[in-house]
């Protein structure tokens, strides 16, 4: 597989996929960068040594072996559909789609055509997160479990377009962004039968930037607090009658286990140092699925449960009580 198209030349292509492709042992020789903003595509092509640019993925269907979709969220499925229909395997950024319906249709199409579709659910590749999953499945913490996931910072992602914000976002922001990662982990750890008990955010018709989700499932209750507005603790805590596990989300290689007798660190050797280092295993997983017929870490069927949860959240969304947002409206003049 030497001819790869990267569709969408925003920040994730620039900082994750393209450096990742360059660091792969057999890095693809011919890269085609696709973006309606051809100036942006050419800039990234120069920076990353790509051989060709195009304005639309439709212009390159006849000369690529695989494609990475890194365009705005709402375009993932329409682009993936075109590629799959042309028989081209796809690695899509998360979220794979913006509705359960379109993701289900894509899953069916990919199965019918026998074409690989993988989703970059990066956290499935984090050793610490895998350790937590193992711990949950082992039952070592006892039952029932409580999970608290608190994550966020002032938004600083070098977004190249406004597609995630305001009117252009379709009123969907943070949940489709960080939420897609966190909910995917919850489904991976606790299974697909989680239900949404509560969902609050701060949208005034635009993209939410702060949210709270409460989920529950058999023997687990989960509280997820996310923010684009302020630095959070950035920690996952899983507590059970027999102990507690903590994971600081920037520590990719370790978790802390607290038992009645004391606390200890569980470390996984040879873990990546930074999130951007995860690009290589993500890409290798995709290329193995295409070349060797293995199952990708996350395919369309795997993300349906988290997509369903996100859709349920938005369907029942209500706004936080945030009285400081209301201006007193008093513009009367004195004197």
């Amino acid at each position, binding site marked *: 597989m030497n001819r790869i198209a990267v569709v969408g030349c925003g920040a994730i292509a620039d900082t994750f996929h393209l450096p990742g492709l360059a660091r792969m042992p057999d890095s693809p020789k011919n890269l085609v960068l696709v973006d309606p903003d051809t100036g942006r595509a050419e800039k990234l092509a120069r920076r990353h040594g790509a051989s060709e640019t195009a304005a639309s993925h439709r212009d390159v269907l006849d000369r690529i072996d695989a494609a990475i979709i890194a365009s705005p969220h709402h375009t993932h499925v329409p682009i993936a559909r075109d590629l799959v229909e042309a028989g081209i395997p796809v690695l899509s950024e998360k979220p794979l789609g913006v509705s359960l319906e379109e993701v289900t249709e894509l899953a069916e199409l990919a199965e019918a055509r026998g074409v690989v579709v993988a989703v970059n659910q990066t956290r499935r590749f984090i050793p610490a997160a895998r350790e937590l999953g193992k711990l949950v499945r082992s039952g070592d913490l006892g039952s029932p479990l409580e999970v608290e996931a608190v994550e966020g910072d002032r*938004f600083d992602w070098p977004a190249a377009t*406004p597609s995630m914000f*305001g009117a252009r976002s379709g009123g969907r922001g943070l949940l489709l962004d960080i939420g897609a990662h966190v909910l995917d982990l919850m489904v991976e750890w606790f299974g697909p039968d989680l239900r949404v008990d509560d969902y609050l955010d701060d949208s005034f018709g635009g993209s939410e930037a702060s949210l709270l989700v409460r989920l529950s499932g058999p023997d687990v209750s989960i509280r997820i607090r996310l923010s684009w507005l*302020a630095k959070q603790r950035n920690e996952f805590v899983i507590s059970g009658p027999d102990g507690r596990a903590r994971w600081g989300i920037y520590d990719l290689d370790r978790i802390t286990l607290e038992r009645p007798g004391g606390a200890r660190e569980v470390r996984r050797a040879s873990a990546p140092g*930074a999130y951007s280092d995860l690009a290589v295993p993500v890409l290798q997983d995709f290329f193995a699925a295409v070349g060797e017929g293995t199952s990708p870490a996350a395919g369309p069927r795997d993300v349906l449960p988290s997509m369903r949860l996100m859709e349920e959240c938005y369907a029942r969304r209500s706004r936080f009580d945030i009285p400081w947002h209301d201006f007193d409206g008093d513009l009367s003049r*004195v*004197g």
Partner: protein
Amino acid sequence: MSAERRTLVTGAGGFIGGRLVEVMLQTPGYDPVPSLRRWSSAARIGRHPVEPVLCDILDAARLEEVAGTVDAIVHSAVGNREVTVEGTRNVLEAALRAGVGKVVHLSTVDVYGRATGRVGEDRELVVTDREYGDSKIEAERVCREYAERGLDVVILRPTIVYGPFSELWTVEPAQRLSEGSWLLPKEACMGTCNLVHVDDLVRAVLLALDTDGVSGRAYNVNGPDRPTWQAYVEALNAALDLPPLSPPPSTSARARTTVVEPFRKLVKGVYFRFEDPIMSIYKGSRPARLAMKWLQGLLQRVPSPAEYDLYGRVVDFPTERARSDLGYEPRIGMTDGVASSVEWLLHEGVVVPRE
């Protein structure tokens, strides 16, 4: 006002510009056009169904294009000297060329330097060694130049602007208090804290937008109270439900400042020159991350000489001129302002309540 006034807000990704956009969206008669330098600062205003425009105020051509679509401009973008001075010139030039009816320029009381006593708008502007205040003096000069050329431009000089989303005067002190690292002795904090709640500042901006015949004039914008810094910090501490302050004795606190200051300057200089490699080390190595966090914590905890200067200075910025010309009167006192700030801090998880 009969029709909605389309108003460009520069710096709409920031604390004051962001709040102004939010208030305009809930106040009849205003149609804000938020202007951002980078999309990454759109998270707060993006919560509303607005369509921000991307506009670097150093890009004169782009500014002129954007200015051609609006009736008024509130200029709250700020940056280094070039952004503050040349950016302001570009904004005003674009406004003049496009026939924009009114510009409100956000300046600061830092233009008075380290003034003490009662400081009215006619007090001399004093250049210090601080880039922020010094470049705002230059930006004000540019405003007066354009006022003389016929542009309707009003200058507002806010004091200590606090409230939800204020990094400098709400988030930072609250974090220091909640970490138990407020290390300024009480006697060092008996200067005046000229607090103005961001909503009072926004009120002044809206009044200035709607006032004719004051072009070229500058106005202090202050709050209703003149607490000491100690009183402000204690009010914040109490609202956060933290134990009473227990700062170190004055002499040891001063000694720490003297020891740490050269080190602070060195670190700042190194970071300024090598930000990218430093951040890449920070992200890639856990030991480096822990070491840098420790260093950052130390530098944040130990007060700087500039803080001693600010917290000890007795100064009042009266607002009589804004009252008589604009009809401005601040309405949010410290007690209410601190209460809503803390409510926001706790809600947003900026500080975590004590268990």
